[in-house]
């Protein structure tokens, strides 16, 4: 085998330009795949962060039937204690209880339905980026009773400005009576998410409990998890730690299954794209190998005539392909790593913050990420496909008879 590899190496160095161009073809394919993989990872990361850190959190705790209809009647008692217990689970960074009620929000000019969240600003800032979404006005004070933050699209709809009055109409949980509460707009929020900007409002945690006439209770506890930790393991630990409480504890992938599906499809899509890309690269490679073989027909005839077995000739061509694949992969690794490094540093901004993907606005640059797959799985895939592409030319060479090979060359 060593002699075959040596011969293969010398053969591909016969025409250095062609070999270089073929390696460049293979390497470019790998570099593209690496870059796209890095871009998809960056996009996934951005999407997950956008989904989780904007408002959702990495996990949430609810009463078992709450999420079916977002019915405030399914609440958790002693929410503060539950939040404290959740924070004791290793890997959980913070837990923020929230009240939630759906109701009518009206101004002197208009009215709309919406979700009114009661939040504790001091704890909320460790779980979500609500304060970063504030574009005008002031964040709700910890014990504010009548301050309300609304999405900027809601403000347009209600035709209100900062300081204007808003009436929230909701059902008190225990009595079942309709109650109205007066608030004053303290600020506008911009999430760059259509649904959130037009249908969410925020009051203080205390105001929320008063609105529902339910002291100490909350409908939701949002959880933030250490970014270095295994999210699924932490959620499992939360379930285990709080199993005595009959709660539903879900990770973001269960709370936003459409995003999780998109991410899974992205990975599948990458391999499909890799296959298609390499079918195209293979066609170029097959052409290059056939040219090389046709030029050497007579030489193959001589080798076969001397007693070289067809299998050895087949192996020789495959080794030539493998060497080209390996060199091409090395070239591609360098190019791909550089491209990813550049994008990891400077990022790629899609459409200056106006592009949307899967319902999320891409308002910040996407930064490529490196992964082990880019340096192991993808190059191995490339080398394997390169060798597979050489099988057809190798079979052609192996099927030659000595006289036929010498005749064709003439």
């Amino acid at each position, binding site marked *: 085998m060593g002699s075959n590899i040596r011969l293969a190496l010398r053969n591909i160095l016969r025409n250095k330009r062609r070999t270089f161009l073929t390696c460049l073809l293979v390497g470019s394919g790998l570099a593209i795949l690496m870059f796209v993989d890095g871009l998809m990872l960056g996009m996934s990361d951005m999407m997950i962060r956008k989904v989780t850190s904007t408002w959702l959190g990495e996990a949430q705790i609810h009463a078992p039937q709450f999420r079916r209809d977002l019915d405030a009647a399914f609440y958790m008692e002693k929410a503060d204690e539950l939040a404290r217990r959740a924070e004791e689970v290793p890997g959980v960074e913070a837990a923020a209880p929230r009240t939630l009620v759906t109701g009518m929000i009206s101004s002197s000019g208009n009215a709309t339905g919406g979700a009114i969240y009661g939040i504790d600003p001091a704890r909320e800032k460790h779980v979500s980026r609500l304060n970063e979404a504030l574009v005008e006005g002031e964040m709700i004070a910890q014990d504010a009773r009548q301050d309300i933050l609304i999405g900027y699209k809601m403000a347009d709809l209600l035709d209100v400005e900062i300081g204007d009055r808003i009436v929230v109409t909701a059902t008190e949980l225990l009595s079942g009576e309709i109650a109205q509460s007066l608030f004053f707009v303290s600020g506008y929020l911009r999430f760059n998410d259509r649904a959130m900007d037009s249908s969410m409002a925020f009051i203080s945690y205390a105001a929320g409990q008063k609105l529902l006439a339910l002291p100490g209770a909350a409908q939701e506890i949002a959880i933030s998890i250490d970014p270095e930790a295994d999210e699924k393991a932490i959620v499992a630990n939360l379930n285990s730690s709080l199993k005595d409480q009959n709660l539903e504890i879900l990770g973001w992938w269960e709370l936003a299954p459409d995003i999780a599906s998109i991410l899974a499809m992205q990975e599948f899509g990458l391999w499909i794209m890799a296959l298609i890309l390499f079918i195209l690269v293979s066609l170029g490679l097959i052409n290059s190998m056939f040219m090389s073989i046709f030029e050497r027909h007579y030489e193959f005839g001589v080798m076969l005539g001397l*007693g070289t077995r*067809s299998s050895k000739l087949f192996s020789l061509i495959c080794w030539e392909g493998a060497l080209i694949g390996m060199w091409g992969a090395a070239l591609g690794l360098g190019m791909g790593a550089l491209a990813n490094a550049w994008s990891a540093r400077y990022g790629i901004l899609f459409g200056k913050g106006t592009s949307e993907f899967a319902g999320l606005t891409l308002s910040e640059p996407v930064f490529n990420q490196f992964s082990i797959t880019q340096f192991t799985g993808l190059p191995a895939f490339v080398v394997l496909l390169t060798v597979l592409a050489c099988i057809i030319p190798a079979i052609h060479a192996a099927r030659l008879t000595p006289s036929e090979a010498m005749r064709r060359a003439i």
Partner: protein
Amino acid sequence: MTVIIKTEKLSRHYGKGNVMVKALDEVDLEIDQGEFTAIVGPSGSGKTTLLQLIGGLDRPSSGDVYLKGTKVSAMAPRALSDFRRDHIGFIFQAFNLIPVLTAKENVEYIMLLQERPRAERHEKAMAILESVGLKDMADRRPSEMSGGQQQRVAVARALASEPDIILADEPTANLDSKTGAELIDMMKEFNEKNGVTFVFSTHDTKIMERAKRLVRLVDGRISEDIRQ
């Protein structure tokens, strides 16, 4: 004398029907061990075809070839490859050598196929190159050698496997007369010293003069068979 090459009603056709060409037409031939035989004839007479069929480089359309009593025309491809490797040496008209191998490596190539140990290959290759006067060219590639030198390396390679038969297809066609004569004399010497059977396909009168036997082909048939 032992018959080492035997053909029985050996034929080779190309094409079919109205466009069939009979390159060889029922040739019966016997060559004894140690003979220095030249197959001669005009272009298109079937010389190269006969040589290729004898050497197992091609399959006959009909008839049989026996080498050392073995029916090579019916051998499976892999067995035929191995038989060629171990019993037949080839010298082609041109482009004999593997261009990316040095002279020594070209000579070693057959021994590599025979899976001989490295030290043995090296020693024998150098000895044979010395016998053809090319020891100093051992590390040169074919592109760095003249046509005559390349053919001498081809002869060295053919001898390296210690074959019983050497088949040479127009080995002097691309050489000047002096170089060609030297090459033929070298092969004649090997024939006489080692008893290796040589069969040439040739137009070269120098080979014809030195051959002990002349087999003349015309239109794929033997028209004359002269022992000189």
